């Protein structure tokens, strides 16, 4: 019954810091640049530099590292899994062997590199979602996507869909928890039995959830129509995004760091 608490990672934490106040477009693009360079780098030193750069960002953001590493716990499994797969599945110079399982030097290096890469990848995206409210995040995406409008990409509509989806994640989680509790009170059992029984036991949860979600979508559509919403054309924003000096400096700094590390390593 601790669903909503488990999925709280990456949730926006309001603070008043340099990173929080950056333009969302700068943050998204910086993230993107970081991620691209993560895949270009092939040596430990490069990762170390990017990792300390990200950690520096976390310190500046004034978010307690506890929240970041709390969320990372959920991903730890994937990282360890990748490491193990790489350790045993790569051909090369054998370091250690137990019957048919062998650890190779190449496997160890590759596994550590990939794990490190994953770790930084998650850290960076974390920093983005922890410091950017969903609204400004979608604002930023909308503005970034509008560059591609000439290709027929409906930037506003995509951003609107994202906003609505993001807005309803906590609502749906709350509702899931509530319905689960209601059905447990009626004798439903969600955690025992084999996989088929478990799947079947989800019916009392999923049907009400869907019924309510559709009803809510209906109501939302009517409410939007009642306020004369008619898509993106000619629509202005309440919060205008403005690029300031700090935005330019931060972005330039990120570009330089990633560019240099990508070339050097």
């Amino acid at each position, binding site marked *: 019954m601790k669903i909503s608490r488990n999925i709280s990672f990456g949730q926006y934490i309001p603070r008043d810091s340099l990173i929080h106040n950056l333009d969302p477009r700068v943050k998204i693009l910086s993230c993107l640049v970081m991620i691209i360079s993560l895949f270009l780098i092939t040596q430990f030193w490069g990762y170390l530099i990017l990792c300390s750069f990200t950690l520096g960002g976390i310190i500046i953001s004034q978010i307690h590292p506890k929240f970041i590493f709390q969320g990372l716990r959920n991903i730890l499994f994937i990282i360890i899994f990748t490491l193990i797969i790489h350790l045993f599945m790569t051909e090369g110079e054998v370091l250690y062997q137990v019957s048919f399982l062998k650890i190779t030097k190449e496997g160890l290096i590759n596994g550590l590199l990939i794990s490190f890469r994953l770790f930084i990848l998650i850290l960076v995206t974390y920093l983005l979602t922890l410091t950017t409210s969903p609204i400004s995040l979608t604002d930023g995406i909308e503005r970034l996507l509008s560059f591609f409008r000439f290709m027929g990409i409906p930037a506003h509509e995509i951003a609107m869909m994202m906003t609505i989806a993001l807005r309803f994640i906590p609502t749906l989680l709350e509702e899931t928890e509530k319905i689960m509790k*209601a059905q447990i*009170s009626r004798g439903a059992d969600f955690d025992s039995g084999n996989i088929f029984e478990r799947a079947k036991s989800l019916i009392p949860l999923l049907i009400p959830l869907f019924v309510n979600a559709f009803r809510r979508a209906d109501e939302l559509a009517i409410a939007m129509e009642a306020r004369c919403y008619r898509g993106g054309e000619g629509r202005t924003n309440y919060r205008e995004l403005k690029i300031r000096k700090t935005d330019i400096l931060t972005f330039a700094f990120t570009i330089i760091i990633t560019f240099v590390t990508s070339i050097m390593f």
Partner: protein
Amino acid sequence: MFIHLDEVYYTYNIDMPFETKALKNINLEIQKGEFIGLIGHTGCGKTTLIQHFNGLLTPTSGKVYVEGIDTSKKGIDLKSIRRKVGLVFQYPENQLFEETVYKEVAFGPKKFGLPEDKIENRVREALKMVDLDYNLYAERSPFSLSGGEMRRVALASILSIRPEMLVLDEPTANLDPQSRNKILSEIKAIHNNFGITIVLVSHNMEKIAEMVDRLLVMHKGEIIMDSSPRDIFANHANDLLQVGLGLPQVTQCMYELKERGKKVYTGVLTVDEAAKEILSRMKSPTVSRK
């Protein structure tokens, strides 16, 4: 003693930026057969409190005992506790999922392992308790019913478990006055006829004053009053108003009469009582009018 809460504290999102202390030092005893009202402002912890009664939540610190069983102890049979304490959530119609009303009401007994041949009886009995005609409703889809009917089906689907205690979280929210009165009188009848212990969370002061024997008032995670509704409305009206709660209209009327210098007793809960009280204070009214 049926339910016993001993220094219960409950905190949501411990160690998170959104940490909230929902319950603070709750000590409470509920005896079998009581009819208890629970009032308090939105967000004062009522819903959190009642979820402790059937082990859906276990306290952050402190103990909850249901018939002597500690709900936070590992390895206890929570299902048997949930069969004893039926919890009806707010807007219970949102939990309906079956194809027919019959299956909906039969879900609980089936899950608690009742044999098939006894289930039909349970369904009949439960539907009768909420005054729905078995022959008319059993085969209908619960989604085709009106709001009030859906809520009664949801209530029946808890009653069919035959709980010893029934906890209702605002069972009349969002209903029209007629459906509201109907559900409340059914709850009263269930209490009278079957001796089921009832905890009723409500915002409707009039009805709660009329119905319950004992009233709990919650404020910011604490129980600040625990007494008969008559005592609370008669003697603690100011405290109630201070925490943002109201009085039943008749009681308020009596308070205003008192304020204007009429010596009336303010602990009245119904219109009839108020009429009697006012008449008894007037000196032979028919004579003075002539």
